[in-house]
């Protein structure tokens, strides 16, 4: 059975923004997309392990604050160098105004 973790309230992330969520020694990035939808990826950039939560969300892309690599946070796809490795993504569901992630 999937273990859903309560990450944050839906109102804790602005639309087109991201926050950091740490759990059990791991770090994640939770995104609020422009369509009001939510997503979750690993929290660290695959280039040099920088927290993506400091980066810029534009549409469905996150830009890393260190060297400006971009990822599609829905699929985790690395879109722009210097990142060559995709981000891992995790299932998300919304329940009672809370963002739950399956990790």
């Amino acid at each position, binding site marked *: 059975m999937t273990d859903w973790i309560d990450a944050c309230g839906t109102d804790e992330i602005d639309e087109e923004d991201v926050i950091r969520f740490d759990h059990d020694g791991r770090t994640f990035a939770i995104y609020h997309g422009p369509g009001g939808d939510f997503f979750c990826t690993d929290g660290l950039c695959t280039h040099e392990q920088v927290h993506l939560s400091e980066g810029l969300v534009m549409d469905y892309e996150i830009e890393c604050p*260190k060297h400006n690599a971009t990822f599609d946070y829905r699929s985790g796809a690395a879109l722009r160098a210097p990142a*060559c490795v995709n981000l891992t993504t995790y299932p998300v569901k919304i329940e009672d105004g809370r963002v739950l992630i399956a990790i």
Partner: protein
Amino acid sequence: MGKRDYSLLGADAKRAVETGLAAAEWYHTDIPRAQMKALMQRADQPAIRDTILLYGCMIAFAGIGIALWPSWWSAPFWLAYGVLYGSASDSRWHECGHGTAFKTRTYNDWVYQIASFMIVRNPHAWRWSHARHHTDTIIVGRDPEIALMRPPDLARMIANFLGLIDAWNGWGRMLYNAAGRIHPEEADYIPETEYPKVIRVARIWVAIYAATIALAIAIGSILPLMVIGLPRLYGAWHHVMTGVLQHGGLADNVVDHRLNSRTVYMNPISRFIYWNMNYHVEHHMFPMVPYHQLPALHDRIKHDLPAPNRSIAEAFAEMWPALKRQLRYEDYFLRRDLPPTAKPYREDFHDGALGAAE
């Protein structure tokens, strides 16, 4: 610290990794997320305006230069064209390489490719070298883009005002890459998956230069080379002048850009050519802020930064004696005093470096 070893494969590179200087956590001024988001916002409009102005002026200056050729009356137009080709291309390469100049990614990519050609920096190889420069800014043995090493090679610096070393190295590397080879130092920061791209671009460039030289031979004039290639030499001076100020004479092996980078107030023409990279501490601290927002970022964080230099001349007057002193004593550097409102950071690294300045 003894003699510095700037090789990316040398003893200082190894030491930087062992001591945690490499890929360290760097200082950032605290900015509330909402303000930071506003500063990071992208727009196409400022860079489209600047790009039309830049390429429009280049076409006009080159056109007048060709029309007046070979009269000496063409010289001022070539000088103006050269600065835009051989210097503005440096900042366009830089900003579009970060992907921040335009909002639209393809616009960044187009201007990046054109600017890389003009400044003779392989767009794929240098994307990686510049990423390393941001990870390990002026960390000896790690940063491949240290313009002024210690002791400084002043003859080299002066020669580069006419592109006499950097441009030739760029063309040399282009031929090396076009032959299907990647230099061992490049291999230290470029992933193997990128090698074919490096080589492909180098071959396209060789074809463009070959066509230009062939045309020059065919018409018996260097005029085609005045348009393509030579302006990288006769127009290089402005980007070298501004570039050496970025970190020259300041601390190395620290993890706080306030101590190793220099912000200089500049005149509007230099700021257009340099695309606001005179706000260099700000750029390094927050590389995702686009060039057109750097003045606003500067206003927001200047309470936490050393006082900027007030002009290019003042910055040179500060840097030049320090460089001369480094000729005799390479551990010397300009100590940056933080204002009383600033937060100090990682004293362990800084004390070691600052102690050597006494």
